[in-house]
């Protein structure tokens, strides 16, 4: 690592003040950023830890929506979201490994928007709202491609608010070495719509498979998915899987998720 100062402000205002300084960078759970610093791929002058800010922590229900503070760890979501939104809890319980889940946070994952991260698919499929220090951003407007989001310089995620679906399921195909999603599909069923979001597959990061959403809104069966053409997006092709393979996985995992919800 290059040398830097680490500070842990106890309030959001103090954190924002610190982040306004030159070459200051925010630290959430650190499970991606610290390895990145060790590889000398980032060189902040100051790292501003958000861990000591109480208002960024916790899971609560507010007007029928599930609110998760940005600095809530995956382990806490797995535990405390379970009775409200079991599919989200299951997703959180299968990120990385137990030690990573005890540090890694939902806000860090969303702000990083790794194309293979699990959380973006749940947020997009649920039509969640990202509450920041400046505004609320709809999930459909938040993810802008691989490692890119609508967040501005100095804008921090405070919390994510999820409309709770009638039923939902996340089907993940593990990349066996990294435990990231080689492809993962989150299917969420609401009164008036079905939403399907896919992570790990596209060059553009997480995306909604709208053809599957339309088909499933009319007929919620695995067959309805299997009869579709594979999604026509620019798929990632690398040593772990070709573009064709990921397109196929997208269809297969969507059908599996729907089948699970039909049981």
């Amino acid at each position, binding site marked *: 690592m290059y040398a830097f100062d680490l500070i*842990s402000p106890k309030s959001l205002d103090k954190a924002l003040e610190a982040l306004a300084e030159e070459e200051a960078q925010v630290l959430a759970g650190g499970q991606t950023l610290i*390895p990145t610093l060790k590889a000398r791929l980032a060189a902040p002058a100051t790292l501003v830890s958000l861990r000591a800010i109480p208002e960024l922590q916790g899971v609560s229900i507010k007007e029928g929506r599930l609110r998760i503070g940005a600095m809530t760890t995956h382990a806490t979501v797995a535990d405390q979201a379970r009775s409200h939104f079991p599919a989200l809890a299951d997703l959180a319980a299968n990120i990385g490994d137990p030690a990573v889940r005890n540090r890694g946070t939902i806000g860090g994952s969303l702000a990083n928007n790794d194309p293979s991260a699990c959380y973006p698919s749940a947020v997009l499929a649920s039509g969640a709202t990202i509450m920041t220090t400046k505004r609320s951003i709809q999930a459909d407007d938040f993810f802008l491609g691989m490692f890119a989001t609508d967040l501005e310089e100095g804008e921090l995620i405070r919390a994510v608010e999820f409309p709770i679906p009638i039923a939902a399921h996340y089907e993940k195909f593990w990349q066996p070495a990294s435990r990231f999603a080689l492809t993962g599909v989150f299917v969420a069923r609401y009164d008036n719509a079905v939403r399907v979001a896919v992570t790990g597959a596209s060059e553009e990061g997480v995306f909604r498979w709208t053809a599957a959403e339309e088909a499933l809104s009319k007929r919620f069966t695995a067959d309805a998915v299997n009869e579709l053409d594979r999604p026509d997006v620019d798929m990632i092709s690398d040593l772990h899987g070709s573009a064709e393979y990921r397109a196929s996985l997208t269809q297969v995992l969507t059908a599996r998720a729907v089948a699970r919800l039909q049981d």
Partner: protein
Amino acid sequence: MQTITMTVNGRGITATVEGRTLLVEYLRENLQLTGTHIGCDTSQCGACTVHVDGLSVKSCTIFVGELDGAEIRTIEDMENADGSLSPLQKAFQDHHGLQCGYCTPGMIMSLSALLRDTPKPTEAQIRHHLEGNICRCTGYANIVKAALAASGQLDSADAG
């Protein structure tokens, strides 16, 4: 430099350190608690697993500057009060749950957290829990066996 107050293995410590110091570095270099190992240094292998406020974490991926007021527990504090091996450590010995021993401190820290929260884990739960702890010697079979034995779930016929 920052002044950080924390508890390590029950002992109160006031440290004046650079906040960016990694916990594993601080444990090994400053406190000479060298039972916590550095394996990959990239948050993959789990050899550096310790408990922070009762939760297993990778000490190579935490800054000491974030640990003011924290309670840290390492492998040095896992033995019984009389210095004998804890039931989980004894099970590793009895069931040959280690060969070179490099990953063992991390394995013990990880599994002790599992057994505290889930006293009778299934084999699948044990294997899922060990996803972040890599062992290149044992093939895991005897580590899983040790965890089953430590949770009282192994018939004596399976011992060995």
